[in-house]
């Protein structure tokens, strides 16, 4: 089963996401595969380069979440040199990191989840895009989103050097101080960010929660998987994007393990399937039992849905209220509904904004001592952050001169790969009947993976504006019977 898959060379026009659907003799779905093309060789490319360069190099893995790679690598570089990040350096890193998370989450809700929930899953193709979302929420809201993003990005650019490819993270701290004027501006922007997040949660209540059909979709079996969940928690067990221990909870919500990233290889292993480039991480203590749900399967999920399930709460008061409302409405912890990820993301949006404000108000943010200079001989280091799309792990070993001898990166979408594959398969099985795949069905299958906001790790720009999705339907004899190329709409 599934061994027919042709691995096409990936070009800018095709191949971001491919779904292969294999039908059975009755025209129902035998199995659906979601392919994520992966850029190979990054880990090899890092070998021989100075560990201090890893934050700059890895931020070029992809144009979507450079800050997450920059930060994971900077933290791993701290660890390689055995140096603690200076407290003010950490505050500066954390302000930027929360600002990045805030901006990324906002973008996702308005422009990515938007076509599904704001415009609606059954809307016509022509409306299900950014312009369609603006048409629905209004030009003023659209302007507000663009302006908010711009302000946050400008401030991050000031502090981090560049928004894309930040250059501020160094072993032991950061490269540049924050001035008193800049701190005042950070406070101002953070206050606006909190207001913006509260407003956005209001939009979600009005547009999604008041629409029974949408709520029905969120709660439906086709978009539900009872898996394990993993996320970083702080010393109080609260969600933290920048640092903490990795906590795993079971499908019943019970805590199963909590470990520092240094021990990740004791807890996580990777499974290889012949039909995919992606290695599927799973919980080592349970083992790989296939693409299966439940306590007996090692499949786990990361990202907003998982983080809220894994943690005891949010570290800030308004986000904590939003967290409680989320679980009360959805029937308690844990929430297994994939589409609830959109709501979980907004709870985090508010949490990130509140943390931005908390950090900006901390007078230590403008302290002169921003970096502890490393003095020890470099060896091996681990860095972990919660990227918007989930847990991101960087692991390096170096020689005594700090030149990288080994690099291993486990990226967010990879952590989610097994559950994404299950979600696409489930949605296809639920929706496809007698082998017919039309645009509405295709969109509902896409919704299954779009909730995860999978990042395909490519630096492609899709300049022609083509849609990176390609669905191929095969009959029971593995003959291609239908092809839907969304890049030729």
């Amino acid at each position, binding site marked *: 089963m599934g061994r027919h898959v042709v691995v096409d*060379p*990936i*070009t*800018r*026009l095709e191949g*971001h*996401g491919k779904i292969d659907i294999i039908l059975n003799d009755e025209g129902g779905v035998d199995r659906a595969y979601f392919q994520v093309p992966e*850029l*190979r*060789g*990054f880990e090899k*490319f890092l070998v021989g380069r100075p560990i201090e360069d890893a934050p700059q*190099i890895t931020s*070029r893995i992809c*144009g*979507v979440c450079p800050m997450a790679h920059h930060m994971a690598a900077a933290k791993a570089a701290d660890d390689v040199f055995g140096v603690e990040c200076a407290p003010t350096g950490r505050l500066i890193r954390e302000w930027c990191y929360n600002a990045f998370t805030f901006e990324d989450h906002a*973008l*996702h809700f308005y*422009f*990515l989840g938007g*076509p599904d929930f704001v415009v609606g899953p059954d809307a016509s*193709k*022509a409306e*299900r*895009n*950014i*312009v369609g979302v*603006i*048409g629905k929420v209004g*030009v003023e809201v*659209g*302007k507000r989103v*663009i302006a908010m*993003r*711009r302000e946050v*990005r400008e401030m991050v650019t000031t502090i981090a050097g560049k*928004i*894309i*490819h930040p250059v501020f993270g160094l072993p032991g701290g950061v490269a540049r101080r924050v001035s008193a004027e800049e701190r005042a501006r950070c406070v101002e922007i953070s206050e606006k960010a909190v207001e913006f997040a509260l407003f956005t949660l209001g939009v979600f209540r009005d547009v999604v929660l008041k629409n029974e059909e949408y709520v029905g979709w969120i709660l439906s079996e086709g978009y539900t998987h009872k898996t394990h969940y993993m996320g970083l928690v702080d010393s109080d067990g609260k969600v933290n994007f920048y640092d903490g221990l990795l906590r795993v909870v079971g499908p019943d919500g019970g805590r199963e393990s909590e470990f520092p990233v240094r021990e990740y290889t004791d807890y996580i292993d990777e499974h290889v399937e012949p039909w995919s480039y992606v290695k599927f991480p799973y919980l080592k203590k349970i083992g790989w039992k296939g693409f299966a749900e439940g306590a007996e399967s090692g499949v786990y999920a990361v990202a907003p849905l998982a983080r809220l399930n894994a943690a005891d709460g949010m570290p800030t008061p308004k986000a904590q209220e939003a967290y409680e409302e989320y679980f009360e409405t959805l029937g308690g912890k844990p929430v297994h509904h994939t589409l609830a990820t959109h709501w979980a993301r907004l709870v985090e949006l508010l949490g990130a904004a509140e943390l931005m404000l908390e950090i900006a108000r901390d007078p230590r943010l403008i302290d002169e001592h921003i970096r502890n200079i490393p003095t020890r001989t470099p060896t091996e280091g681990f860095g972990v952050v919660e990227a918007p799309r989930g847990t991101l792990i960087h692991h390096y070993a170096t020689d005594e001169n700090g030149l990288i001898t080994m690099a291993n990166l486990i990226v967010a979408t990879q952590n989610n790969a097994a559950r994404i594959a299950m979600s696409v398969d489930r949605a296809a099985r639920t929706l496809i009947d007698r082998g017919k795949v039309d645009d509405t069905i295709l969109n509902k299958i*896409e919704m299954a993976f*779009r909730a995860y*906001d999978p*990042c395909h790790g*490519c*630096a*492609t*720009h*899709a*300049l*022609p*504006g*083509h*849609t*990176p*999705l390609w669905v191929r339907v095969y009959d029971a004899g593995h003959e291609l019977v239908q092809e839907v190329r*969304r*890049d030729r*709409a």
Partner: protein
Amino acid sequence: MTGRTLILGLGNELLADDAVGVLVVRQLSNDLADRADIDVVGTPEHGLALLDLLIGYDEVVLVDAIVSGAHEPGEVFEIDPTELRPTPNPSPHYAGVPELLALGERLGLAMPRGVRIVAVEAGDLLTLGGPMTVGVRRALPELRRRVLDAVGVHAWS
């Protein structure tokens, strides 16, 4: 904002031929150093992030490596942005130029009146740390000349 015209090179220097957009703007920065009305910028960003870069200019020339399948690798050609119709995207990270222009106009932002896209057919956009392919490397002077033509500057060398 200092200039009315923007030359925007797109690309990732670590990805073989994808570097070409960024490399050519480096040369163009020298060529156009004394032109206060023309800004020359290279970026690996894509999607919605490009919107911020386009706002406020009258004219924009985009330079990029593309796999169109309709040209030989290294061939330089121009794409008419009006022929690139907006399509529904599953991700704003990959939002294309037509979407950005449509969005900017819908929001009443100061979008450029004219957008030209000068492209070079790529041979390899995926080998990490890979060198540019021979065809694309040889196309650099032609690409530079075509961009200068697009902004009305005659290239002497």
